[in-house]
């Protein structure tokens, strides 16, 4: 087996045994990126010098017997994470020349453990999109079929893992941006509970929904990555000071005896028949492993998308006000004074989808419309959150599809924003409720495109999610399939 196809835990054993060095692993990944990224376009910035220096330091640390699970492992980051001294663009023209002055908390925690950062990954501009077609640096292609999208907004993070260009990656998830691309690219993706991972040094889209999480080859790697980045951070006042359990300690506890709810509102018309069949097969696997499966109801599901597109755009319009051509980013050359400079810099720097969301959010917050749109959406958010808390009074986990279809062809939905938004109907409610969810490979379409299964957990109960996901993975082979690229 190739070193670029292995998991973190497999590589850790080989690094410790001296079978391979981190410098060798890092070189192998850099060569793989060089060979495949012309076709995939997963990377915006590759950092060979920094990566090889970090790999050499990791090899020294391993030789001293001080290796952490992540020491020497080549990983990559969505280009939304600030990385000291490295260009950080958020896939926007407006940040084309921005070099981050410090490391965000999640990045600093990965570096402390000795992880090797290969580079910065492509994404939808400012994390706004479901297909990775909204990048100022070009669309990312799905490694399973180059004519289809990898999903978004963390499309580069998912494609890089699927194409063996990184062992694991970090993404962010505001309405499905980790889980939906993980599903479309056949990898594992976790959106932790809001507040579980610090957002310090992560470029903000919608601050009450954004959350950092890993994309990996298997559930055990997902547990390792979450362990590294989870936990309270004084620099993020919304990170929550609750204990972080040892996720690997309970990983093998099995799914038997767990009660799984199937929300009836998620098994609807419009769900692709192949996706439906794969998820039904997955339900049977869970039953055979001893889980109890019951139907539950999340009655306000149908309102989640409308709620999200008011809450998220309102927060985005406020967050993105900072890009004004003064402190960082691109400034319009021509202008007639300060206000005109702001307006031209923003119009020239932002892409179409970002402008659309800023406009919608500004409208929803503007005088005369605030109560009808933003406040109304916040109240509906309460109803959606209650749906989940009520369901979790009856069951340990919820099981649903990740997306209504497998990956769609590039260009298919770009003309109709609402159709694109509907790609996220099964993932968005989780962000509104603020809880955690895992996306796992559970099958393929007849055309050979991956299908994903979503497990949704109670707030701060990522451990049960990973435990159930691990049991499912051990009983199936889907995560072992490799894209031929």
């Amino acid at each position, binding site marked *: 087996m190739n070193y670029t196809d292995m998991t973190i835990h497999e590589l850790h054993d080989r690094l410790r045994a001296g079978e391979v060095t981190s410098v060798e692993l890092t070189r192998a990944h850099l060569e793989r990126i060089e060979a495949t990224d012309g076709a995939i376009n997963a990377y915006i910035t590759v950092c060979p010098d920094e990566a090889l220096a970090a790999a050499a330091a990791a090899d020294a640390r391993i030789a001293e017997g001080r290796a952490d699970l992540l020491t020497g492992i080549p990983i990559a980051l969505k280009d939304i994470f600030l990385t000291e001294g490295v260009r950080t663009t958020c896939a926007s023209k407006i940040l084309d020349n921005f070099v981050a002055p410090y490391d965000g908390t999640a990045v600093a925690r990965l570096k402390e453990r000795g992880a090797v950062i290969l580079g910065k990954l492509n994404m939808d501009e400012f994390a706004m999109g479901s297909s990775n077609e909204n990048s100022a640096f070009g669309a990312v292609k799905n490694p399973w079929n180059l004519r289809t999208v990898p999903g978004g907004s963390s499309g580069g993070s998912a494609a890089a893992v699927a194409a063996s260009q990184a062992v694991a990656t970090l993404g962010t998830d505001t309405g499905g941006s980790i889980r939906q691309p993980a599903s479309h690219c056949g990898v594992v993706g976790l959106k932790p509970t809001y507040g579980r991972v610090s957002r310090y040094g992560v470029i903000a889209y919608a601050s009450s929904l954004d959350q950092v999480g890993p994309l990996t080859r298997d559930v055990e790697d997902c547990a390792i990555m979450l362990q590294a980045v989870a936990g309270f951070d004084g620099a993020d006042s919304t990170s929550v000071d609750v204990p972080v359990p040892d996720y690997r300690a309970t990983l093998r506890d099995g799914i038997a005896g767990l009660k799984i709810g199937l929300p009836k509102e998620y098994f609807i018309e419009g769900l692709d028949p192949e996706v439906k069949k794969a998820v039904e097969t997955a339900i049977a696997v869970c039953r055979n492993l001893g889980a109890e499966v019951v139907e539950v109801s999340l009655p306000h599901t149908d309102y989640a998308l409308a709620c999200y597109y008011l809450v998220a755009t309102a927060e985005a319009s406020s967050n993105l006000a900072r890009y004004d051509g003064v402190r960082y980013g691109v400034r319009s050359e021509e202008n007639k004074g300060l206000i005109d400079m702001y307006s031209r810099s923003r119009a020239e720097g932002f892409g179409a989808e970002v402008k659309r969301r800023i*406009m919608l959010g500004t409208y929803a917050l503007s005088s005369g419309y605030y109560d009808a749109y933003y406040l109304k959406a916040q109240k509906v958010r309460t109803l959606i959150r209650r749906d989940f808390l009520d369901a979790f009074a009856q069951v340990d986990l919820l099981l649903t599809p990740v997306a209504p279809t497998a990956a769609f062809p590039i260009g298919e939905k770009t003309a109709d924003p609402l159709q694109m938004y509907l790609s996220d109907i099964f993932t968005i409610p989780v962000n509104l409720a603020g809880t955690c969810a895992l996306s796992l490979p559970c099958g393929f379409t007849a055309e050979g495109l991956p299908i994903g299964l979503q497990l949704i957990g109670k707030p701060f109960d990522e451990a049960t999610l990973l435990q159930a996901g691990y049991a499912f993975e051990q009983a199936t082979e889907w995560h072992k399939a490799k894209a031929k690229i």
Partner: protein
Amino acid sequence: MKITRPEVEHVARLARLALDDGEFDALTGEMDAILGYVAKLEELDTDGIVPTSHAVPMENAFRDDLVKPSIGTGTALRNAPEAADGCFRVPRVIE
């Protein structure tokens, strides 16, 4: 119609976006369609429902008022489109 072109132009001024004619035309149709869709929230009775601004209930996060190192003027100005005398330089403010 949920939104008209003059309203879209007003919102663009609020958002500090110097959009062109083609963008105004496209956005008027797109925002109208999206606002038409989100109007479904009106079906729900939300009287007496407390709005959720954060999914995880939290109180104000206080910390001790300690002086800590910051990135400093030089680093802070490194990404500035224009800087002078340790400050961000901007076009004329008072016209």
